[in-house]
């Protein structure tokens, strides 16, 4: 191989290559090979294959790192860094993509907007996420972020004849592009400060400056604004409820889980890499943002009657908890972020899966009343939803408790008793609104008798998320070991 594309480069790129390759294949096959609507299941198979190969690539990278005893290796002249952190997050992305694709089939049929491009977009978005987790170069990160974001803009607006979907897409695009602009501005300043776009160089250059250097501060502020938008932290959260509510529910699930995890991967890379030196400046700022996020997310969720919107606000508050891991800033906190995102992926996805099952012909299944009496109609769905909601609330022995536990532990370790107490108090608020859903499912009378949508993919995905949500809670050890490998600070 040439000096531009070495075997190490290839090894680092394989998962993304597979995703891109199969993404293009899905787009092409949709057009030439499987044009008939009934053949679309082959596209799902193609997608699953792509994700399988990408996962294989990840596993090989992981095995390589383990066998060589390396913490990381870089490729493309420092543009990509493969470390435990990257592999861990990529695993989350792949799992989320596969689960979402599995349940989309039936959902899109019901919505009447089933097109093969959808699966291609999922793969391309996942490809973008890959570079968010592995990239260590501003340009790669920026382009990867945009690749993901653009796929999401389209997927949010995928129900073209649905006004809500269109409006959600345009809002998400406007604010997403706006935040990308700010992020790019921050990146441009970092470049100017370091004379290089590699994160390692920028870290070194910024470390050599006083923390209150005006240019550093400006770079930090604009970058932070851009990142806060992406992970929907208060006061840059206003797009999230709208985009979540209007988007097709499968996309909402994907957006709330994978996009958030990817953006947090970026956020952690930036704040613990280049901006680590200015910790004294951003730490109180982030603490304030986290508290504001918890407050707004939790209090706004209390009054919602649309479950999608409710889960959107709850997802805002979860972003606040995750951010607290960064505020604590110790290894426990960083590990906590990884654990939290892993757990959050399965529990939040699961909650949305139940909503997807509730979407039937003629029935939107998004309002609180639509869940009424679910226990009579389908006990399995109701009990799974209960598990997901308990986990989201952070009640043992579900996985959500382990996640929250890490955040609290990190805060106590960092001596942030007050933040811990505030975060703890909001758990009670969260329980209140999650239990509105529980109440609706278990106590209220049945509102309609139409059976729930079901398909093999949906049942499989519900089973996987449900089992994992319980399994991580009851036997967390193997998952914690995985997360341990992802800690950046060692």
């Amino acid at each position: 191989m040439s000096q531009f594309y070495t075997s190490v480069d290839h090894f680092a790129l394989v998962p993304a290559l597979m995703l891109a390759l199969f993404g293009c294949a899905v787009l092409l096959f949709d057009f030439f090979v499987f044009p008939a609507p009934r053949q679309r299941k082959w596209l799902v198979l193609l997608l699953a294959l792509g994700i399988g190969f990408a996962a294989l690539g990840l596993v090989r990278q992981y095995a390589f790192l383990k066998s060589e005893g390396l913490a990381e290796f870089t490729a493309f002249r420092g543009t990509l860094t493969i470390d435990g952190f990257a592999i861990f997050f990529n695993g989350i992305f792949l799992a989320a993509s596969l689960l979402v694709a599995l349940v989309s089939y039936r959902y899109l049929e019901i919505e009447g907007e089933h097109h093969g491009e959808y699966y291609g977009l999922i793969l391309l978005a996942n490809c973008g996420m890959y570079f968010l987790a592995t990239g260590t170069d501003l340009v790669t990160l920026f382009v990867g972020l945009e690749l993901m974001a653009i796929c999401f803009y389209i997927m949010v607006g995928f129900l073209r004849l649905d006004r809500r979907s269109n409006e959600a897409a345009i809002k998400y695009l406007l604010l997403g592009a706006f935040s990308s602009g700010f992020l790019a501005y921050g990146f441009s300043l970092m470049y100017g400060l370091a004379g290089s776009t590699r994160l390692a160089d920028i870290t070194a250059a910024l470390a050599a400056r006083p923390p209150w250097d005006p240019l550093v501060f400006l770079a930090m502020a604009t970058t932070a604004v851009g990142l806060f938008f992406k992970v929907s932290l208060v006061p840059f959260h206003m797009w999230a409820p709208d985009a979540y509510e209007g988007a097709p529910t499968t996309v909402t699930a994907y957006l709330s889980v994978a996009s958030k995890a990817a953006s947090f991967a970026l956020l952690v890379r930036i704040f613990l890499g280049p901006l680590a030196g200015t910790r004294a400046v951003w730490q109180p700022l982030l603490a304030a943002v986290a508290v504001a996020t918890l407050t707004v997310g939790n209090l706004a969720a209390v009054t919602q009657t649309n479950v999608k919107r409710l889960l959107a606000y709850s997802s805002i508050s979860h972003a606040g908890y995750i951010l607290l891991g960064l505020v604590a800033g110790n290894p426990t906190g960083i590990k906590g972020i990884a654990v939290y995102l892993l757990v959050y992926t399965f529990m939040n996805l699961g909650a949305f899966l139940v909503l997807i099952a509730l979407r039937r012909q003629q029935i939107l299944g998004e309002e609180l009343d639509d869940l009424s009496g679910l226990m009579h109609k389908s006990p399995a769905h109701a009990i799974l939803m209960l598990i997901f909601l308990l986990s989201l609330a952070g009640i043992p022995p579900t996985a959500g408790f382990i996640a929250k536990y890490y955040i609290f532990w990190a805060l106590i370790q960092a001596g942030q008793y007050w933040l811990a107490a505030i975060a703890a108090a909001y758990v009670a608020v969260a329980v209140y609104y999650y239990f509105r859903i529980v109440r609706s499912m278990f106590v209220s009378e049945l509102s309609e008798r139409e059976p729930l949508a079901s398909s093999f993919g949906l049942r499989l995905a519900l089973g996987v998320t449900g089992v994992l949500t319980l399994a991580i809670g009851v036997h967390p050890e193997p998952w914690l070991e995985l997360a341990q490998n992802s800690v950046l600070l060692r």
Partner: protein
Amino acid sequence: MSEHLLSIILFTPLAGMFILLLIPSRRTDLIRLWANIAGFAGFAVSLPLLWRFDKNAAGFQLVERYEWIPSLGARYIVGIDGISLLLVLLTTLIGALAILSSWSAIQEKVKQYYAMFLLQQTGMLGVFLALDFFLFFVFWEVVLVPMYFIIGVWGGPRKLYAAIKFFLYTLAGSVLMLLGILTLYFQHFRQFGYYTFEIAELMKLDLPLGIQQWVFWAFFIGFAIKVPMFPFHTWLPDAHVEAPTAGSVILASILLKMGTYGFIRFSLPLLPKASIDPRIVKILVGLSLVAIVYGALVSLMQQDWKKLVAYSSVSHLGFCTLGIFALNPNGLAGSVIQQINHGISTGMLFLIVGIAYERRHTRAIAEYGGLAHVMPKYATVFAIAMLSSAGLPLLNGFIGEFTILQGAFEANRLWAAIASLGIILGAAYLLWLYQRTMLGQITNPKNLRLPDLNLRELAVFAPLIAWAIWIGVYPKPYFEVLEKPVAEILQRVRPEYWEKASALAAAPLGVLR
């Protein structure tokens, strides 16, 4: 087999629940039958404790320990001492009886109902058995969810409000408690270099008073809400009144004891400096005394039968916390005994209300009167329960209250004086209640044809009455069982007291022996 006795006790109800879930939900009688079998199996497997437990051994017995989450330092450790022995037996017995009592009361969603009960049973047993703080916390929270459903699904008209209030109060407290646990956990790491949740390990900690105080208050909020102590008690009347009968029984008899148990097992031995801090003791004793008198006064004014019993719990639990913070052997042992007593007698009182409610569908005291004429057995059982709750000698309540008063008297005479006021008030509201419902002429024609207790209902009361009389007549084994653990706790909290008053301590309750 026998070395896993505690695990068997702990997981029998859970196994019963899983089998229950396999039964199709339309076969309601089979479900009822199986639930009762599972409930009594839970009680039966706990009986070997009676002879396996060695009252002369120090420390915890029948301990089992396994690694659970090594990277957090959390282990599966269960074990019992005299305090938890009594509470475990109370739990298994009351649990089985509560299941038996709901045979005819619950007519819809029967399968879910019994599943919740059995799950809850495991949760409560776990709280009393766990010797690892992480495990303890998991069980502590596991209890909440079934109780929410029991109140929220099968409860009275304001069930949803009551259920969520119960849940939120307890959860808010327990999350703060978690922060306290984490503080100890982290301090242990700083002093010893490794993370563990094991209670025995955490006891080795030497913490400055400031941290102990902060942790104490974090624990306090968690436990006090559960007990409930005075300003945190407002969830209790709602939850009790709205819960179905068996739910109220479990709530009063066992769930509330989780709070007092927490104080005895964790707050005192883990935070000895904070526990004898005069300010903290004053505040806690003050709140206990307020609870005793306030609970009794509010009970006096109730028009609702069940609410009256609910407020009487506030008063009785005040005695328990008073006994704990008297910080001497009599107070502590009395407190544990009184917890058992309260479990027995208030459990009976709630069952009695439940039976009246099942027949008349009202709880207003004014609706009843003269029931003794039509329901003589019922009136007799009620009389025994009432007298046991009021603390009549030769019944269990007397032993507990008397021992606590002895302890309080030793600590401060004023405390004892105020507490005895509570006993007088307690007798007043209970006797008045009895008079209004049972005695006199039947004024309400609807009460003329009420059926008396049937065999099943009598079977529910019989063991409780027997137990009440046993404790009242022959309490010695209970004090013997409690002697070691109480001494160990107090030696940690007040070593100086022990040296000074070893003669006194060697023979607590010499009067009764």
